[in-house]
């Protein structure tokens, strides 16, 4: 885990040693939207098509937001509010999570979960954070039936 939990957006990408421990996230082909998790970036061009600026940020913000999320899920009252909410993202934001840095896949999964399922997820912090830091869901797992 990265020790830094900065909320500032650095202007250059920094794939640090932490990310290298998450193989799915260590791809260089990160052309992602702003909720994809790792290394989100936006390129800006001038009218001639020349690149003039790139805003990129690293996983620090994602990690910080996932840490906030884990803390909220640990609270039974907040879990209940989330499970009963009709606007999951807004309720999560009100509970103190920087929703813009939570990957869409994590948000939509949590929004589909009941109170009992959120309780189970609250005991799966490590898996939840690993999921939030992964760029994509693996296409094949190792399980077969």
């Amino acid at each position: 885990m990265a020790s830094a939990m900065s909320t500032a957006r650095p202007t250059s990408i920094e794939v640090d040693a932490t990310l290298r421990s998450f193989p799915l996230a260590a791809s260089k082909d990160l052309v992602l939207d702003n909720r994809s998790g790792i290394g989100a970036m936006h390129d800006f061009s001038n009218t001639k098509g020349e690149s003039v600026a790139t805003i990129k940020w690293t996983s620090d913000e994602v990690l910080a937001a996932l840490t906030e999320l884990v803390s909220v899920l640990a609270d039974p009252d907040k879990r209940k509010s989330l499970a009963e909410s009709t606007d999951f993202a807004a309720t999560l934001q009100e509970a103190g999570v920087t929703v813009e840095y939570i990957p869409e896949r994590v948000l939509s999964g949590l929004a589909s979960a009941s109170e009992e399922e959120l309780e189970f997820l609250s005991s799966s912090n490590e898996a939840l954070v690993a999921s939030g830091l992964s760029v994509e869901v693996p296409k094949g797992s190792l399980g077969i039936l």
Partner: protein
Amino acid sequence: MGLGQRERLQRKIALLLPSLGNAGQRLFTQPRIADLYPEYLVTLHWIVRASVPLMEAACTRAAALSKDDPVSAELVPYLSEHIPEEADHDEWLLSDLEVLGRDRSDVTARPPSPTVAAFVGAQYYWIFHFHPVALLGYIALLEGYPPTRKQIEELITRTGHSPKAFRTLLAHAEIDLRHREVLDKKLDALPLTKEQSTVLGLSAMHSIHMLTQAIDEISHRLEPPHYG
């Protein structure tokens, strides 16, 4: 319009699936993967040999509930059709293990790990003490995300073992895709209560958690003990 059961379940699975993918990556990138691959098949055998008995248990329980329970009534034909499709897959694994020099009687004599017992055993609990629909969460995970052919070919190269020791994996790379389609349709057709939808999700997420642990334990099985 609300989400269908299939979409809802897939979203929950997608929440934790990367942790299982990471466990697979850790296992398959081990320098000793040639030695570990037979142990991986042994673990799969422990799991797969319970597939048909689990589905039979769920089908029997669903049949008993079906008169007053529309979800159970839908489960009976699905499971009755699926049980023969999964028959003998444990034998396939034993045959693959024989290619690797593992005697089938030695494999079947080994006590399965507590992790696998907890992984599979949870399904018996839910089937008998809550509702047999829980088993579909387990099946959705195990059939929904089979290894890809490319992953298997890379594994063959990395281990240096004969492709004949990968027949079960190669077969599932194809047949699970068909099974997943059938299950997806069934899930969307089930009139689940909120509680039944929850146990479906819990079953799938618990299965990811336990399978991840079972995969991680494979690497530790061949490590010498460390003291002090």
